[in-house]
């Protein structure tokens, strides 16, 4: 155990850094995707509702490992070989970010949609009856209240996404799990290696959820 920490500790920490980088990149784009598709899901517009629903259904209906293979291997193959004339290549980090953003984005879209719909209809009506436009009412009245109710579910989704980065070891991105596989292969100490890796995830996620609780409490002031 000690030997793994002294010899491979630095390597594993760097890998953890990459895991966090991947998760942060993925979450950043997932938030944007989630907001866009979530709001499209509540607009009074049939077409935008349908597009949002299809996006969510498709992404939720495909395992992330399949999505990862598809984006990393399938998409470049489609452009380079099937169509030809293009040279598309994605790095593992780029492909991983796209996968996480799409996957987490679909769940975020559902969270956003549910959050907006949980705000009493009267809030929108009152805002509109004062002459505010739909957009103003959404921005100033409905969304701020929706986000409050979304936060616990958001945090839950952040944690799931952080853990889902491990799936992306299959496309060769040297995040924590992928690196740990190499450490195990070199040392044959599988018990110690995976215990340490598990602990690393546990610590990061615990810190994340604890600080999230603090944020949640702060935001509830005045409610």
């Amino acid at each position, binding site marked *: 155990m000690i030997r793994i920490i002294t010899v491979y500790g630095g390597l594993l920490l760097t890998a953890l850094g990459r895991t966090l980088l991947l998760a942060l990149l993925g979450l950043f784009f997932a938030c944007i995707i989630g907001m866009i598709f979530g709001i499209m899901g509540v607009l009074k517009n049939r077409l935008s509702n349908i597009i949002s629903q299809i996006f969510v259904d498709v992404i939720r209906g495909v395992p992330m490992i399949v999505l990862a293979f598809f984006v990393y291997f399938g998409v470049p193959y489609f452009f380079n070989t099937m169509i030809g004339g293009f040279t598309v290549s994605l790095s593992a980090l780029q492909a991983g970010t796209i996968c996480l953003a799409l996957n987490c984005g679909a769940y975020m879209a559902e969270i956003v949609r549910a959050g907006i719909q949980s705000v009493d209809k009267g809030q929108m*009506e009152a805002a509109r009856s004062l*002459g505010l436009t739909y957009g103003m009412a959404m921005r100033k009245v409905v969304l701020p209240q929706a986000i409050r109710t979304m936060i616990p579910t958001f945090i839950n989704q952040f944690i799931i996404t952080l853990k889902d980065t491990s799936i992306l070891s299959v496309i060769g991105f040297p995040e924590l799990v992928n690196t740990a596989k190499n450490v195990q292969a070199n040392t044959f100490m599988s018990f110690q290696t995976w215990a340490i890796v598990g602990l690393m995830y546990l610590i990061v996620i615990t810190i994340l959820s604890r600080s999230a609780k603090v944020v949640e409490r702060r935001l509830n002031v005045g409610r």
Partner: protein
Amino acid sequence: MVDKSEVKIKVTNLKKSFGDLDVLKDISTEVYKGEVVCIIGPSGSGKSTFLRCLNKLEEVTAGTVIVDGNDITSKGININKVRENIGMVFQHFNLFNNLNIMDNLTLAPLELKKCSKSEAESRARDMLKKVGLADKVDSYPSQLSGGQKQRVAIARALCMQPDIMLFDEPTSALDPEMVGEVLQVMKNLAADGMTMVIVTHEMGFAREVADRVIFMDGGYVVEEGTPQEVLLNPKEERTIDFLNKVL
């Protein structure tokens, strides 16, 4: 007080259906400047739907609604512009829960660039004084009682300086001892010459304050006239029936 020369709201052959359900069947009426109209009737008679058609919170199925000369049922109308001039007060107050009282009152004037921040705030203070809640500027809606919330809601609507105020059962969700304070604010407003359309179950208030009472049932106006006529000497069978039950 009622200025018969100026029609503020003109409703012609208004119909409204939700799917197969015809809620409003054929309604025509006019509201004059400075007039206080109370709409009474059993639940499900279409009173609230009628009121909500006056500022297009409900899309009308057929007929026209003309407010201040603007046909709000026409396609190209900028409904937001028209709504700026029509205050609305809801049964469940609908104060913005995420904003304190000052921000509740100044949100619309500021977003719509009606005036400067200092003007909006001083007007908000005036309106809060008018409804007797000057000390609540920094409170949040959740810290107020029902009666206080409703008075804030009235003040919020007044901050847009509307010509017309619509009230959708403003006292129905209140504890009995808080009804009086809200009705008092409405009486003052009526005395100031505001044009008001009020859906209410407060017959005493209607008798005292209304210039005209409309009794609705089954999507029609069954009877209308002065409070004297409708509430004290009703002619229609259904009006008599209804009044016997509620009085």
